[in-house]
């Protein structure tokens, strides 16, 4: 067995927040640059120019890219040979969030009283147990201008994948200018209500431009991206060629009675990172 301290994970989470709040995910920045080069709508091109300049300034001067520094979402895959030591993982990560957000916007509050927690905690942590001796962390600062535009549908089988496709494109069309397009779309297909929503969130961690390893999903992603871009929403909704930078799908078997579809919308500045804690190198090895 291998021991990894949750404090160690939390320290890495804190450093990741500090970095990604000021630096857009590289494949996202590259996709925006491409969108800028091919745009010929005057106002959309201006918007893309401002977005790219903003990203450059934020990185160079270490300022938050966007004032909505989001709610922190963390997916943690824990190798089954790993024992986590120290505080509970959620508590350790929340301490890291609290420290990292002293200089970031604190946007988290109670849904009923609307009283702000003033620390941007709690974060949303999803854990899963996998093979191996490592801990893999995926972290995202999720803004809510885009989160608010997201949808979950529980279709009946007669409606089928064609209706699912229509609803995915329609979600982007209805969101239009609100989620700061060009957007990135995560889609969950199948599972249960919560599994479907979780897949649509996790899909947003895919590198832009990467292919889906499942052939029929890859084909679907490309078809949807083309349809979304033909909507003509453009950067900031000003009308243009690029309405989305990518569509990413995760799927899971579902029940004979249903076709769950979840659409998670992300803005044009993806603030996400992944890192792996190698248990063999970084863990404190002990015999159990």
């Amino acid at each position, binding site marked *: 067995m291998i021991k990894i301290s949750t404090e160690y994970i939390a320290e890495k989470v804190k450093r990741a927040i500090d970095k990604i709040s000021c630096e857009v995910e590289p494949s996202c920045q590259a996709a925006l640059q491409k969108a800028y080069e091919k745009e010929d709508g005057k*106002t959309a091109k201006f918007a893309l120019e401002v977005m790219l300049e*903003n990203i450059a300034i*934020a990185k160079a001067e270490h*300022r*938050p890219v966007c*004032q909505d520094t989001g709610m922190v979402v963390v997916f943690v895959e824990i190798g089954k040979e790993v024992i986590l030591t120290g505080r509970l993982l959620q508590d350790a990560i929340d301490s890291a969030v609290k420290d990292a957000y002293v200089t970031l*916007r604190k946007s988290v509050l109670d849904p009923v009283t609307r009283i702000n927690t003033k620390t941007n905690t709690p974060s949303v942590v999803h854990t899963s147990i996998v093979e191996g001796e490592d801990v893999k962390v995926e972290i995202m600062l999720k803004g809510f201008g885009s989160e608010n535009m997201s949808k979950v549908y529980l279709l009946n089988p007669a409606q089928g994948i064609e209706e699912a496709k229509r609803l995915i494109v329609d979600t982007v069309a209805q969101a*239009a200018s*609100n989620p*700061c397009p060009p957007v990135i779309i995560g889609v969950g297909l199948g599972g249960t209500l919560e599994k479907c929503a979780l897949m649509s969130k996790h899909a947003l961690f895919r590198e832009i431009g990467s292919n889906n390893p499942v052939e029929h999903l890859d084909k679907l992603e490309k078809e949807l991206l083309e349809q979304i871009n033909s909507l003509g929403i453009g950067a900031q909704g000003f009308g243009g060629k690029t309405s989305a930078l990518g569509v990413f799908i995760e799927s899971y078997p579902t029940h004979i009675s249903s076709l769950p579809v979840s659409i998670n919308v992300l803005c044009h500045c993806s603030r996400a990172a992944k890192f792996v804690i190698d248990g063999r190198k970084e863990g404190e090895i002990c015999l159990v």
Partner: protein
Amino acid sequence: MSSVKYLSLPLTKESMRDLRVGDMVRLSGEMLVFRDAGHKRLYQSILDGEQAFEYKGETIYFMGPCPARGNEAIGSAGPTTSCRMDKYTPYMLDHGLSAQIGKGKRSQESIDAFKRNGCVYFSAIGGAGAIYSKCITKAEVLYFEDLGTEAVRRITVKDFPVVVAIDSLGEDIYSK
């Protein structure tokens, strides 16, 4: 970019009348800043017959900033989604508000109110928080300090970049 218009705040009805949808504008001067919670509390104070503060002739920027770092006036400061303020917008435009700055499409009721009052809605570039921070030379909290990032602020801006999204004729950039 070509043909950028430079305007001083506060805006006059005359200067707003000359703006057309899609115009790129740089604003300089003072504006008010508040968003969801600030609007909700202000509106409630009006319903209660004790309006918390005056906004006649003002331009309101829908924004909740990051904390300032070092010697900057304010932290990152890009726009938030405007449609959440549609509930309050017709009343405020009918009672003297000049202009709003945010991002994204508006309700038909808001569009009608901009037209009816000869007012303008500007879109700032969503996500461009670092650039907008650098355009703000001064910031102070005026009201509702307990709301944190959602408090009511007065800021002074220089060459603040926006696009006319709804003009005084009611033309809307998002429905083109």
